[in-house]
């Protein structure tokens, strides 16, 4: 029991800290964006560029775009991969899609950016894009005879034309604005415009209480829960309960709870952008530039969303809610387990295995990624833990590249679609490219540090 208590406390503390600080401003808009992309972008608008008669300089970028726009979790990625491959897309673009989708989609990038920093998100995006196209081209060259046999398949599947409506485009951009306004770390957004002092005497005591429940060690990379964070957790729980009533049957039309849930979601987002600091006998609430930016972006979403047809709007809500139901519980469980693991793992182990940017460190990171299967997005808090425990950014990126692409489970499914010979070749290339990506990024970080 004495051994279990700190473990459970570590898990619960990690969970509370994540819910309070990171989840809201990044994940809430990201779920809505992912839902909007799935529901509002007609799939033929992108897949028509994947036909084998399309020139390479169009079909490969289109495959990457399809990966980042159409698919969010492996549940969608692998069936879509199988679909576009069987329907006659070349092996190359199909592989590019398969490689890029788990790392290049909006949920993964937004989450990586908010937890590991914008630099990591950018490196992940760039290297995945380059290597995804690279691996696709390589696979197409290696298996060109097989691929040619595939050629008699119809191209008609990809000829369908589809337009994206202006309201849908507006909604997508406005949502992106919500995401950026909430997460960008620039001075303009952090600056306080107006500070209100509320005479709430219990705030300071509540903060002390929170620190007692969730003790944290900043040096170890841990985070505590603030007064604002505790209110946000309460709002999130409430939102979850209301959304269940309002979103579960959204395809049949909206009910009263749907509106309550949406207003609550917007209010929660807006509240998270205020700066709330408890002091002796009072609570300082500041309106920052972020509050104004977030407010404008949210208003823009509402304005554009009014132009959507009811069916489009409802399927957008349903897809967003489905992503929440599917991904969020796994993420919570993952974050809890990571918090427990952090209490056990000694920084020395990580440092000796992958503390520096060499071939061994990067190879170990890739191997770890292959043999450990984490559900969608959980690789991000895991990576954060490694970073805090002293892993070098190079091997960390190698791990981030390999983990979503190369779990044993996804290998089996991919092999079922394209055969073991091709699947193993793909796995080999991914391992090699991920290791290289880690070495490159690590070298770049080291060079940057030494010039500082």
């Amino acid at each position: 029991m004495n051994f279990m208590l700190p473990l459970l406390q570590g898990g619960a503390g990690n969970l509370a800290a994540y819910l309070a600080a990171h989840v809201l401003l990044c994940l809430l808009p990201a779920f809505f964006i992912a839902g909007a992309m799935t529901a509002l972008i007609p799939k033929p608008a992108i897949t028509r560029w994947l036909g084998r008669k399309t020139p390479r300089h169009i079909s490969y970028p289109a495959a990457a775009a399809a990966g980042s726009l159409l698919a969010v979790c492996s549940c969608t990625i692998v069936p879509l991969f199988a679909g576009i491959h069987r329907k006659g897309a070349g092996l190359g673009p199909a592989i590019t899609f398969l490689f890029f989708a788990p790392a290049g989609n909006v949920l993964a990038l937004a989450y990586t950016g908010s937890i590991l920093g914008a630099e990591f998100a950018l490196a992940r995006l760039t290297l995945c894009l380059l290597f995804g196209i690279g691996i696709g081209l390589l696979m197409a060259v290696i298996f060109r005879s097989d691929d040619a046999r595939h050629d008699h398949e119809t191209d008609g599947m990809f000829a369908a034309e589809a337009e994206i409506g202006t309201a849908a485009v507006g909604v997508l951009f406005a949502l992106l604005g919500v995401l950026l306004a909430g997460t960008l770390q620039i001075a303009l957004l952090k600056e306080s415009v107006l500070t209100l002092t509320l005479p709430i005497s219990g705030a300071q005591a509540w903060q002390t209480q929170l620190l007692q429940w969730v003790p944290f060690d900043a040096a170890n990379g841990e985070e505590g829960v603030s007064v604002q964070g505790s209110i946000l957790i309460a709002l999130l729980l409430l939102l979850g309960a209301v959304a269940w009533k309002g979103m579960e049957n959204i395809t049949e039309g909206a009910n009263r709870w749907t509106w309550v849930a949406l207003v609550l979601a917007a209010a929660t987002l807006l509240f998270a952008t205020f700066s709330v600091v408890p002091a002796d006998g009072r609570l300082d609430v500041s309106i920052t530039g972020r509050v104004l930016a977030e407010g404008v972006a949210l208003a823009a979403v509402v304005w554009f969303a009014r132009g959507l047809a009811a069916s489009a709007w409802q399927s957008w809500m349903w897809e967003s809610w489905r992503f929440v139901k599917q991904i969020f519980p796994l993420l919570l469980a993952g974050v809890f387990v990571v918090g427990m693991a952090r209490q056990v793992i000694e920084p020395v182990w990580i440092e000796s295995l992958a503390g520096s940017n060499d071939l061994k460190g990067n190879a170990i990171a890739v191997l770890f990624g292959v043999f450990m299967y984490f559900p969608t997005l959980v690789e991000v808090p895991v990576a954060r833990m490694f970073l805090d425990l002293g892993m070098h950014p190079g091997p960390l990126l190698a791990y981030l590249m390999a983990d979503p692409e190369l779990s044993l489970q996804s290998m089996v499914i991919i092999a079922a679609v394209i055969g073991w010979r091709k699947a193993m070749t793909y796995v080999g290339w991914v391992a090699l490219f991920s290791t290289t990506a880690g070495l490159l990024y690590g070298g770049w970080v080291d060079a940057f540090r030494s010039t500082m």
Partner: protein
Amino acid sequence: MKTVKILGSGCANCRKLESVARAAALGAGVQADFIKVTHHNDILAYDIVATPALVIDEKVVCSGRIPTQAEVAQWLGAGA
């Protein structure tokens, strides 16, 4: 008697589609056999890119989205 097939790997959307279709059939008083098609080879035999898809008497009526009960009831009634 109608044959209703639900194409999809068994994710949340396919389960939702199945419950919508069953409710629609019940509401419209249409006798129907429900078959879930989950293997991707069988799914790809139909001319669709995205799941979930609904097939009524071997005709694809909708794919890549979840229809409303009213729509499904209409499709079920159309071929009667």
